[in-house]
């Protein structure tokens, strides 16, 4: 069984970001980037399936700029076998990412796609679902447990009402939620080995797809700062304040 994992380079979730001066986008100059945490979980799950003898090969795909190689290398250092980067400087929408991934799936004859449920930078939560639609494959989103046997995947999903367990026939798409596993750290020797693992870079033009964006970003703003509250001593004081200074009573 061949697994494709998809990883995205995002701003490190521990770092504060802000709009650039003309508010046209987020200022990313020298901001620390990292792998989307949900993609780490997808990587970990794929590697565990390989270690368990269920998967024969784990291929990692990223679509983005040249630096996205760093995130592919991280996946390889964790244990993935080889990488593919579809290189583009454009910011692609989930639908276009899904279209490109579908092409790779055909070329590589993939049986299972594991990806994060959403990326921590834009929180779209769309790519997995769109990919399933394009491929007409079964999908299980928000997975917190994954079990594979006899060409079938049994997946526990975290849904609003609790946990839902479903069975899918492979090939299928599974998007990973936080509680699926705890990703491992890459060790020094594995980081060194990962530098020699195969990584193919494909120019995006090679795919001959129409990737015209459907959205236009108009403006980026920081969220409004919440003003500090006052701590009052008594209900009387509160009533007084509401009547006089606030004028709402």
């Amino acid at each position: 069984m061949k697994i494709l994992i998809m990883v995205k380079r995002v701003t490190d979730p521990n770092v504060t970001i802000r709009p650039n001066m003309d508010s046209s986008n987020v200022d990313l100059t020298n901001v620390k980037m990292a792998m989307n945490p949900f993609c780490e979980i997808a990587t970990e799950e794929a590697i565990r399936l390989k270690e368990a003898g269920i998967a024969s090969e784990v291929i990692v795909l990223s679509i983005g700029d040249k630096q996205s190689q760093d995130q592919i290398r991280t996946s390889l250092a964790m244990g993935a076998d080889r990488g593919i980067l579809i290189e583009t400087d454009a910011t692609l929408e989930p639908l276009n990412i899904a279209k490109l991934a579908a092409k790779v799936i055909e070329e590589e004859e993939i049986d299972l796609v594991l990806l994060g449920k959403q990326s921590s930078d834009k929180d779209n939560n769309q790519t997995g679902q769109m990919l399933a639609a394009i491929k007409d494959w079964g999908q299980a989103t928000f997975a917190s447990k994954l079990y594979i046997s006899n060409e079938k995947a049994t997946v526990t999903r975290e849904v609003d009402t609790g946990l839902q367990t479903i069975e899918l026939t492979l090939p299928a798409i599974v998007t990973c939620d936080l509680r699926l596993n705890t990703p491992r750290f890459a060790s020094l020797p594995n980081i060194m080995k990962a530098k020699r693992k195969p990584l193919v870079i494909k120019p995006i033009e090679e795919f001959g797809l129409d990737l015209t964006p459907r959205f236009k970003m108009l403006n980026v703003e920081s969220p409004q700062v919440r003003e500090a509250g006052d701590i009052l001593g008594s209900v009387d004081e509160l009533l007084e304040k509401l009547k006089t200074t606030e004028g709402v009573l």
Partner: protein
Amino acid sequence: MRESMEFDVVIVGAGPAGLSTACRLMQQSQKEERELTVCVIEKGSEVGAHIFSGAVFETRALDEIFPDWKERGAPLNTPVTSDEIYLLKNAEKAQKLPNSLVPKTMHNEGNYIISVGNLCRWLAEQAEELGVEVFPGFPAAEILYGDDGEVKGVITGDMGIDAKGEQKADYMPGMELHGKYTIFSEGCRGHLGKQLINKYQLDSESDTQHYGIGLKELWEIEPSKHKPGLVVHGAGWPLTKETSGGSFLYHAENNQVMVGIVIDLSYSNPFISPFDELQRMKHHPIFKDTLEGGTRISYGARAIAKGGLNSLPKMHFPGGLLIGCDAGTLNFAKIKGTHTAMKSGILAAESIFTAISSEITVSNELSSFTEAFKTSWLHEELHQTRNFGPAMHKFGTYMGGAFNYLDQNWFKGKLPFTLHDTKPDHEQLKPAAECTDIAYPKPDNKISFDKLSSVFISNTNHEEDQPCHLKLKSEVIPVEKNLALFAGPEARFCPAGVYEFVENPENQQQQLQINAQNCLHCKTCDIKDPTQNITWQVPEGLGGPSYPNM
């Protein structure tokens, strides 16, 4: 058994010194066609994440390693266009010092305003291209000693240990990294450097080291106020006669300015809060006029080793070298440590390469380093300025400044005597009862801010469930001595709110709470704690601040 890996040279810390060593080693290895394995480990989550200096940079050492740095795209984009020095007399008034009265070391023609973090990011790329293995996110936790007492490498920190010391699901043990030579370039007061100095008594012939704490903010200001290349230095207010230090404002690229203060850690009044000094300093018209209407982007702090040549310990020991600010090569008279750290890295690489090529055994010390150091421009530069810091301490800002003007401009640092300053900074605090409390103004949230919102934009982050990396030798000293006698100075000198005295709800007694996850890795607590009760240890890898463009 821990796993181990062998290298010719292991370098601890991806700062200017360590990366310069790595690059120079590989350049020599290519020139002489002798294969060499070199690795650099770095505790920050990426190279540059913990590099705080944002600085006026002299290119002398960079010119030596990469004469073609411009073509290689080194991030030196803002040449210094003018220097201004002010004596701040009070919260409103300042007097500009005429150029002719400024010590020569404070002139900056030909220098650049840069982010040293970005310089390091670039240096790491050069190093990797040359074949160096650079590993960010891996702190060196312990020194490995060989049978003859020589250093034979380091052990990287364990990952995935919980607060109680138990292994978690993602536990990964640290690795032994063995090197024919190990270079320690951790920056000021490196936690391993400190151990090496003690073990090999490297400071037996030098004065005690002196430190300062630098606090800095990065601001994006209104384009109309931005003058790229302008360097402003201030002396005097808000610091008083007993407290030496100085302030700065550098106009960098992209409408950004770096504003900050350096305060000598020899200060005596335990009520001094370096953080609050910075906040009120910014309200002086010299700074406020520039900052008003701008946005604060980042904040951070770091201790600096400023003792200069008098305090410089021996830099070699069996199996390795202590270089850069880890030893203390900063030139305080120029307030510059990057070019000197880089030069110490170049010299280190050259003596190590010679030693490895000639197959000298490891137990031989790299004494050739000291010979090379003594005949280098680095030594000459540090020798010229050896009296600068002690003069400021002995004679105060004004008279010390006057001495330094004469010493540097008339005698070029060649006066036939050396001033010494032998009292360690942590012994300088006076009991709180003998000092006046300082009432710092409340932040206005436009120019000045509180500590926690500041720490937030340093992007510091530590895995929460891990052992506390700030170790107390005695649990009772913080309350019984530091609080009782010195009014709890750690709550003030820590620029990140790590130390807090809180009331224990059970017995209504005060107790020290350590918020280790706020730590900026500045090392001030390890230096200034009056009883040296606090030991800074390295936390789990990837932790600490993440400074962009600082």
